[in-house]
């Protein structure tokens, strides 16, 4: 499949243990990868660059939402870019899922494909995590008028049209809901954005579990969303 018009945007914060492998694996399918180093204290940026990714370095830590916006703006400098993919740095995401999502977005002429871990049974989230994520998606659907099954999945494919219009201002973790909200409200040539969800397999390793955000953070996200 043609992938030289695709950019992978990978927000990077203290992932020195895994980033080189993640980049190398993804490079086999995607020639264009930009890692946005969000002020890591370890060698993440150097390792990502050595593995073959483009690296943009925030001078200070700004948050994952800010890193995504920076990466998207960087990818927009490439005039031949047609699709931006947001991809996690911690090895939770599978390259094959991205390929499937790209095939879908091209075949069905969509603007956005969101990844969802709840469309099939492959992702093994704990019951509590499931409950929190499900509550979050109910809230997001209610407030944004979208119909999704997983609003906090880091894997998304965005067409250039949408990437150009997106303005993520939630620097923290509330950016996931903000992205959904903006896409829900977005108009392309007067018509709503065409989006779909695709099943992805989120691989919870011991590493990602240890690094992943605690459930307490969902409280913070909710407050950030209400007080935007």
């Amino acid at each position: 499949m043609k992938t030289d018009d695709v950019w992978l945007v990978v927000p990077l914060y203290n992932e020195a243990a895994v980033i080189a492998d993640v980049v190398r694996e993804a490079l086999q399918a995607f020639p264009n990868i930009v890692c946005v180093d969000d002020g890591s204290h370890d060698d993440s940026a150097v390792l990502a660059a050595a593995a073959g990714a483009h690296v943009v370095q925030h001078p200070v830590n700004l948050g994952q939402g800010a890193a995504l916006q920076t990466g998207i703006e960087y990818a927009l400098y490439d005039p031949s870019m047609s699709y931006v993919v947001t991809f996690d740095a911690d090895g939770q995401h599978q390259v094959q899922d991205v390929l499937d999502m790209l095939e879908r977005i091209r075949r069905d002429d969509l603007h956005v494909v969101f990844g969802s871990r709840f469309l099939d049974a492959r992702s093994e989230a704990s019951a509590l995590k499931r409950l929190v994520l499900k509550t979050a998606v109910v809230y997001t659907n209610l407030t944004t008028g979208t119909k999704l099954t997983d609003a906090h999945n880091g894997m998304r494919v965005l067409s250039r049209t949408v990437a150009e219009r997106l303005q993520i201002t939630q620097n923290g973790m509330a950016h996931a809901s903000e992205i959904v909200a903006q896409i829900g409200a977005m108009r392309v040539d007067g018509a709503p954005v065409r989006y779909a969800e695709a099943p992805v397999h989120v691989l919870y390793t011991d590493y990602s579990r240890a690094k992943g955000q605690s459930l307490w953070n969902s409280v913070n996200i909710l407050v950030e969303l209400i007080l935007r």
Partner: protein
Amino acid sequence: MKIILLQVFLIVLVLAISWRLLTGGGQRIQAVRRLGLGAFATFAVLSILFPNVWTRIAHLVGVGRGTDLILYGLVIAFFSFVVTTYRRLRQVELRYTRLARRLALDEALRDDPRPPGSVPTDADGA
């Protein structure tokens, strides 16, 4: 009316704080703030001199004690301070993020051996 030492000290304190806040910050906001502070300072001095003025106002609005009325006022003032401060910090954060992003992008585009949009060569392995 007997002025005690504490009253003198409190009045001086109120005047000193007001003076610090009154000097310094857009025109209309500054003007409103100054008027508000002036009124606040006047009232502060008056309530130091005539402590039961608060109790009388409290009775007028149906609150038992003047101290309770002051407490309610403080709670409202504090919450509005928290909210306006949060909003202002959000604005500051937005600007600061844009600035940092501009820096990061400029630096990356300058130093990238194969900046986005450059024609891929065979060496890229693309």
